[in-house]
């Protein structure tokens, strides 16, 4: 081919016609181009919405994100107080941090220009250093695209109407596949650990479950909780309240996962085989524990592991305290508790049943022969409602009622029962009464959403046909021939609290009515019964508002006496009692090994 073909020379020249056309380029900085609506530019973090879970920092393989403390942001329950700081020199704008942010607070913006001659300027805190860029947010992760799994694996339960036919356990528990799936939702942020009174190693055992290593999970769980199966069934689970995933979705079912892991060990021997604890050589020191409730059992278990000779004195025939006598069997079956207590006994803890201190054995005797005494005596004396008619037959307290049912006794409550109160005990009493065939109404002063009871319990009660009357104030128990025939109540309206507290109920004039009832069960709280203590000890012991005053290790002002559980702790739940016990173990160990 000749070099001089005419077309080959003229064709390229047609490019000249591009002269005078509008150019593709724009003049910067006179004209700046707005990035697209999905642009992955510089980070922006909503500091108020962020809970400092650190998931962004975990996923970032460039180590571009550090979690740092900022002035004015304090850690609290459900917020670590830390916020991400981005090293823009390391960031590759892959936006995985955005995809895994459970709260959706971290986003990328349309901003792409950041010029500085100082290298340290590229290290800044999104949301603080670029406060005004909130309206520039472009790359976001909503609930649909986020990689966080917001939906919980549903728990299988017996049908509500099926449940009330017996005391069979209502919750069926996760199977292996469900547990693995649920465990894999956890992002291991540890906010739950902070919130748990006992600081259980939650991310660690959930991780073990997710990796299919149930035995490891059980060992981790037993590290600081000797009654995990009980917690796995009935814990008040403050951990789930602060779960990072709960900000935009359903919290990881931490309680059910613990239940799953503990239920893999079918009996006490298997627990012992799996946990295989190191029991230290006997050190010759004697510790007595009064009350075989959660705190007492915790003290006994961990002190026994440390080589102490531990004896528990329990007034009743079974160990577990309120978890045995207060919690209905459809929530916590007897065999489950027996298995756990059996394991505690198997490592050398002695429990003297049916031995009420102050009656069957004197406190002084115990005090004299022990190097330390732990009192986990609980709150077993119920408050009364303080209204007329409480002396009538058919008026009783929930704790008394539950105690009787759990001890195998029968109490005739008739077929129409009112339960007064909004806590877990009220719900328990209502659901038990329902199982005994009664038509049950819970009367509560405030609204359902104000109830301190667990929402799952409230839902469970409703499923079982328990009627909940909100904003009802009990005025009088009405009776005839010494027997309860009704409950006089008044309706209430909610008055907002000017100080921002929860609204208060105010009786509506003329709204009184009498509900026909065969029994009225009060469930408004309990208090401690310290009559077992000798007078001279009572005089010396510091007690405030019905609770022993103790230091951080559970030690009372009498150095040999330690206390924990409901008689110390206002939170009044099992896990707090276990936490008290665990703290006391360390304190007692330190006290006796000075």
């Amino acid at each position, binding site marked *: *081919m000749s*070099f*001089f*073909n005419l*077309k*080959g*020379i003229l*064709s*390229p020249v*047609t*490019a000249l016609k591009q002269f005078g056309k509008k150019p*593709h*380029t724009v003049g910067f900085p006179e004209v700046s181009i707005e*990035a*697209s*609506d*999905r*642009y*992955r530019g510089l980070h922006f973090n909503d500091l108020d919405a962020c809970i400092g879970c650190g*998931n962004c920092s*975990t*996923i970032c*393989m460039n180590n571009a994100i550090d979690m740092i403390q900022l002035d004015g942001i304090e850690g609290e329950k459900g917020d670590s107080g830390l916020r991400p700081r981005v090293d823009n020199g390391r960031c*590759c*704008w*892959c*936006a*995985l941090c955005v*995809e*895994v942010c459970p709260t959706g607070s971290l986003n*990328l913006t349309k901003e792409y220009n950041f010029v500085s001659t100082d290298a340290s300027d590229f290290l800044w805190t999104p949301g603080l250093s670029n406060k005004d860029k909130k309206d520039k947010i*472009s*790359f976001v992760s909503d609930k649909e*695209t986020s*990689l*966080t*799994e917001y939906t919980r694996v549903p728990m299988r339960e017996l049908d509500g109407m099926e449940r009330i036919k017996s005391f069979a356990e209502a919750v069926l528990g996760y199977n292996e596949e469900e547990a693995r*799936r649920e*465990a*894999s*939702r*956890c*992002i*291991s942020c540890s906010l739950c650990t902070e919130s748990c009174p006992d600081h259980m190693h939650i991310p660690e055992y959930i*991780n073990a479950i*997710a*990796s299919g290593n149930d035995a490891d999970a059980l060992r981790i769980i037993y590290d600081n909780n000797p009654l995990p199966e009980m917690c796995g069934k009935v814990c008040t689970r403050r951990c789930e309240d602060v779960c990072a995933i709960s900000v935009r979705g359903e919290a990881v079912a931490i309680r059910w996962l613990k239940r799953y892991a503990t239920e893999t060990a079918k009996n006490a021997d298997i627990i012992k085989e799996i946990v295989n604890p190191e029991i230290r050589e006997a050190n010759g020191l004697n510790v007595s524990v009064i009350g075989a409730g959660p705190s007492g059992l915790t003290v006994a278990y961990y002190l026994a592991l440390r080589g102490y000779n531990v004896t528990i004195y329990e007034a009743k025939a079974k160990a577990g305290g309120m978890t045995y006598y207060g919690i209905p069997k459809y929530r916590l079956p007897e065999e489950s508790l027996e298995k756990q207590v059996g394991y505690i006994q198997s490592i050398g803890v002695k429990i003297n049943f049916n031995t009420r201190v102050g009656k069957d054995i004197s406190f002084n005797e115990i005090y004299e022969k022990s190097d330390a005494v732990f009192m986990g005596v609980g709150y077993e004396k119920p408050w009364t409602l303080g209204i007329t008619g409480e002396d009538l037959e058919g008026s009783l307290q929930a704790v008394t009622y539950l105690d009787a049912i759990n001890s195998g006794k029968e109490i005739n409550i008739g077929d129409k029962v009112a339960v007064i109160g909004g806590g877990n005990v009220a719900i328990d009493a209502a659901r038990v009464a329902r199982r005994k065939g009664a038509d049950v109404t819970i009367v509560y002063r405030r609204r359902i959403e104000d109830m301190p009871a667990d929402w799952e319990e409230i839902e469970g009660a409703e499923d079982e046909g328990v009627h909940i009357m909100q904003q009802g104030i009990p005025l009088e128990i009405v009776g005839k021939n010494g027997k309860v025939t009704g409950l006089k109540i008044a309706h209430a309206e909610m008055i907002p609290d000017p100080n921002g507290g929860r609204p208060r109920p105010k009786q509506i004039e003329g709204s009184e009515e009498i509900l026909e009832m065969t029994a009225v069960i009060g469930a408004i709280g309990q208090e401690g019964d310290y009559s077992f203590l000798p007078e001279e000890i009572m005089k010396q012991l510091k007690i405030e508002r019905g609770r022993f005053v103790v230091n951080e290790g559970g030690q009372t002002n009498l150095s040999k006496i330690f206390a924990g559980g409901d008689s110390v702790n206002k939170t009044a739940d099992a896990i707090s009692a276990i936490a008290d016990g665990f703290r006391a173990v360390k304190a007692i160990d330190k006290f006796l090994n000075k």
Partner: protein
Amino acid sequence: MREKSTTLYIGPQHPGITGNMMVKLQVEGDTVVKAETHVGYLHRGFEKLMERRNWLQSFTIVCRICVPEPDPNEENYARAVEEIEGREVPERAKYIRVMTLELARIASYLLWYGGQAGSAGLYTMPQWSVGDRNYILDLFEDLTGGRIYHMYIWPGGVRRDLPKGFKDKALKTMDYLEKRIDEYDKLLFENSIFQKRAKGVGIIDKNKAIEWGVVGAPLRGCGIKSDVRIDDPYEVYDKLDFEVPAMEGGDVWTRALIRRFEIRQSINIVRQTLEKMPGGEFYNKIPNPMKWKIPAGDAYVKTESARGEFAYYVVSDGTNKPRRVHVKGPAYVHGVTLLENLLVGENISDVSFIMNSLGTCPPEIER
């Protein structure tokens, strides 16, 4: 006394070299008698890095194996993971993936236009084609949030659905590009200089091409119709109507013509995907990436990239990290074996011209 031969070095930093690599030339006069490639200037250890990153974290670095066309890497990685795990991909996601891959192919060819013409000293062409490539990058920005590294195709589907108004914008861009191809023809293919430079230069022998494992446009330029999209269709290529060109010749000119033809086919495919794309989900969500484990197994997947067959071999040992990710890019063959053989006997000034026609990309050689 005159020396018989001289040693010359091109690269690792040289405008005529695609990426960072060096070619050591033994020349006699203007003629190359021996060419030796030296790589190792761009090693970032991707394959090793992935062994300590979890399955999702690895996804963000595969695109960096190829700057001009990152998407086949994402596609391969995603498809390999899906194959081992048995994860279903929604139909809509498959169409979006094909569209993304074809947009990437067009963008890559436009960049090649610039390189091929630029290495022949025709400097208007790069200005045009790189400028037009920016319109594709605009589409990528709208679609993925990134212009170069899209990180868009990931296991389970794609990361986001098409944004509002994307279809119209994409179709308009396709119309515009189609018109521009005609103008490129006038500037490049009808240009005597280009014809003179390209015809009969860098001829690949058909049998050698098969022997060495040459793929993509260089292989099709030898008259062998080979394309993964046809031979082993993935995603929804079997539902689309397109042709794969093959021409006898084996020189730079034939390879250039093939690429020119393929751009039109790709424009056509993009239009088809936009029209045929069904509604529904775009993503089959993976579990929590921190605890995402892939059952033990392995997968070998391949994708037709702009430079030819691009394959990944991924092995899982059942943990949350890949045991091994092996990247087999076309550049390994094209940039080492083929280039060293092809340069012998050619003029020095054709070295980078031939190199560009093979589409070598050093990051693929040293992953």
